[in-house]
């Protein structure tokens, strides 16, 4: 009962005259429904919050340096590593047979279950595994000894162990083993040299390759236009031979420089020993980051944490994407989404304008409208197939034949690329914009249009001056929805231009600077790739969370900016009384 029956109040002190109960029962008030509505909302909120918290917590803690634990087992074997997770398991009879009766009894009492922990032990080049399970009953001692180093390398993943020796310029420097500051300085110098080598190999030699390629293409173009063997072609060939000679000389010089630097680099080495005593000597420059995990104070941990985040958002991936940064993926996602908006907004708005304002409302328009709405329900992978077949092969193939014949058979636009990916996603999201725009146009009060028309404005002037500005906030909402949908889409992109590793960004210093034909990296695909396509999915798992956090963050920032723009428009155009 939700309220006191009126009769009970009114009839106090006198006889009840009527048998009819004048009250509001629960069904009429709809209280159960209210609980159901509120419950549904709460359930949804809890799910979303839980999801966000999971992603946030895992993403935020991944880069925090963890202690390195040395575990001594009953058989004397020692394991050193970061504790990763623990679980209950059922030891087999052959394992149980080796245990002492007391332990066996404990396990039997527990229903045959024992617990074990997973340690990230690194040293893949020595152990051939990154992770190892340790059964808790076999542990005799755990310790976090000082001096244990966590060393991130360019190759083979992290090394966990101790520094045995440091060689600088072929001279052993045992003093540096314990001298953290001195070692850090030597490490910085080695890394600077390594970056210089990379600069020469990638930028300078890459530049020469680029010039050589464009010269070669120029000759090909002349051969195609003028024909082979013509005087122009011969002259071009001759010019090419000269240029090639010059460039080859430059290349030889740069290659020699790089070689010399590499030789110098190889004389600075670090010798590491894992917990079992096996040693490994590597170039100091191939160490990305090293820290004594058990000796760090809070500031030291924070420094490692910050440096890892910075590497993550500002560097390229390495080790099959499981380490390093995701800058190309951030950039690819951002540029693709921007292109998508640039395409989808005008296209969707123009379509909706015609449908709503100009087309004669009839059966045909109704069919078109239903079809547009249904387009939103087509699986996105189908759009990917269409994008590949139509945009890349048909459109791109024609563009290649017309404008880049000299590059054939290598496709330029005739394969997946950021332009085709954006167009595919634009097609995928255009129904959202059309529907939102139509709604927004329909919501513009008739009195506004009539006022404008009565002033002698033409239909187009009315739409341009009155209707579109009024509908703009609604249109923006549609574009925001489309953007959010597009930025989170992965399946179609796998067909039309997203790759595991794109060596070249869509934006660089070579004319025409913005390379729409290039394939690119995408955070969504990166998540799929790291989580499910890498050598070791266990090692990739934390990266999945970090990348997800980053993707959600990126979409959040883009949406917020769009919403801010929309609200500004709303304040400008919408009155309070219509």
């Amino acid at each position, binding site marked *: 009962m939700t309220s006191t029956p009126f009769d009970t109040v009114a009839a106090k002190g006198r006889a009840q005259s009527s048998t009819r109960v004048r009250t509001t029962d629960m069904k009429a008030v709809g209280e159960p429904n209210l609980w159901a509505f509120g419950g549904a909302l709460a359930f949804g909120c809890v799910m979303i919050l839980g999801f966000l918290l999971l992603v946030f917590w895992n993403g935020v803690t991944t880069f925090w340096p963890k202690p390195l634990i040395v575990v001594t087992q009953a058989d004397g074997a020692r394991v050193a590593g970061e504790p990763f997770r623990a679980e209950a398991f059922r030891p087999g009879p052959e394992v149980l047979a080796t245990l002492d009766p007391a332990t066996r009894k404990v396990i039997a009492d527990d229903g045959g279950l024992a617990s074990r922990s997973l340690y990230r032990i690194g040293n893949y080049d020595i152990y051939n595994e990154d992770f190892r399970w340790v059964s808790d009953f076999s542990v005799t001692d755990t310790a976090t000894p000082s001096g244990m180093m966590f060393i991130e390398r360019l190759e083979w993943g992290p090394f966990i162990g101790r520094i045995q020796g440091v060689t600088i310029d072929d001279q052993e420097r045992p003093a540096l083993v314990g001298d953290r500051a001195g070692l850090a300085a030597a490490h910085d110098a080695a890394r600077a040299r390594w970056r210089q080598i990379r600069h020469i190999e990638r930028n300078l030699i890459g530049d020469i390759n680029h010039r050589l390629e464009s010269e070669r293409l120029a000759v090909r173009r002349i051969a195609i236009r003028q024909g082979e063997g013509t005087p122009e072609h011969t002259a071009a060939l001759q010019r090419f031979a000269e240029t090639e000679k010059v460039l080859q000389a430059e290349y030889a010089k740069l290659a020699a420089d790089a070689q010399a630097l590499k030789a110098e680099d190889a004389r600075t080495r670090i010798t590491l020993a894992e917990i079992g005593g096996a040693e490994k000597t590597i170039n100091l420059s191939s160490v990305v980051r090293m820290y004594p995990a058990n000796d760090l104070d809070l500031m030291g941990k924070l420094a490692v944490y910050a440096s890892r985040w910075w590497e993550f958002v500002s560097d390229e991936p390495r080790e099959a994407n499981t380490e390093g940064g995701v800058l190309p993926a951030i950039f690819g996602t951002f540029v693709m989404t921007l292109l998508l908006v640039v395409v989808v907004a005008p296209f969707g708005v123009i379509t909706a304008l015609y449908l709503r304002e100009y087309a004669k409302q009839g059966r045909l328009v109704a069919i078109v409208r239903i079809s547009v709405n249904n387009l939103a329900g087509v699986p996105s992978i189908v759009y990917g197939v269409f994008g590949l077949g139509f945009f890349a092969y048909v459109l791109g193939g024609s563009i290649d034949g017309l404008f880049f014949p000299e590059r054939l058979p290598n496709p330029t636009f005739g394969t997946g690329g950021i332009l085709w990916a954006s167009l595919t996603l634009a097609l995928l999201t255009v129904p959202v914009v059309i529907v939102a725009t139509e709604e927004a146009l329909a919501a513009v009060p008739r009195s506004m249009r*009539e*006022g404008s028309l*009565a002033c002698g*404005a033409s239909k187009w002037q009315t739409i341009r*001056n009155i209707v579109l500005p*009024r509908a703009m906030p609604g249109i923006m909402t549609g574009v925001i929805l489309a953007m959010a949908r597009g930025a989170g889409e992965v399946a179609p992109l796998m067909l039309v231009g997203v790759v595991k590793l794109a060596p070249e960004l869509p934006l660089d210093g070579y004319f025409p600077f913005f390379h729409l034909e290039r394939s690119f990296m995408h955070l969504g695909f990166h998540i799929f790739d790291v989580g499910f396509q890498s050598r070791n999915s266990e090692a990739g798992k934390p990266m999945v969370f970090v990348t997800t956090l980053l993707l959600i963050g990126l979409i959040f920032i883009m949406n917020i900016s769009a919403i801010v723009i929309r609200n500004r428009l709303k304040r400008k*155009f919408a*009155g309070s009384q219509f």
Partner: protein
Amino acid sequence: MVALAADDVRPNETVYHIKRGPEGTALAIEDFRLWYGSSQALHSVNMTVERGLVTALIGPSGCGKSTLLRSLNRMNDLIDGLRTEGKVVFEGTDIYDKRVDVIALRKRMGMVFQKPNPFPMSIFENVIYPLRVDGVRDRKILEETVERALKGSALWDEVKDRLHQSALGMSGGQQQRLCIARAIAADPEVLLMDEPCSALDPIATAKIEELIDELSGRYTIIIVTHNMQQAARVSDNTAFMYLGRLIEYGETEAIFTNPKLAQTRDYVTGRFG
């Protein structure tokens, strides 16, 4: 209470006793009929509108007075399935002729609507909107027009200091006078008013009525109203419509004091409607 079936009134039974204006006829409506889809909303309306006078259209709801008004600047063109027959002659041309430029026609016939509909722009921009769509950019002309139109609609003194503030911050009555200013900024010959005071309070209504009084003579005004006192106060001629037919069209004073038809008397005295 007199119940009238639609068939009781034939078009040729319209009774005319209008006051002639000094400048002759502005508009001539000749055998004008209109259909929304298959239902006929206007049955053979014949009337002339005198130049420089105020003509009121009265009648119960649904009698077609708004439809008739909106036919005069072809605002009804926006409605799907609308069909007309007959003529509306303005300046010697039938405005329903295929060759007529509707936009040019509307520039000569300003219109004020039932609800104030200022655009979400500044007061200044609202008033010069008709000039903007004509592509007028000369600042001096625009400013002169704003002053003339706002003075014409008796709004100048109230808003001259906040011309560049949003028009949506004004009161309803001010907004309606702004809409009148916007209509007269285009320098029309005819002003069509579709129940301009129905959304306003009595004081704002009085101001608008005063304004109509001032504007008469300069413009030919046709006003649709539900308020019979208003029609009696502001208009020179009054047309009484009923069920899509023009019943009686005559001098306002006569319509309200001594109508020729019993039906008109019943309506204006409030016995039905």
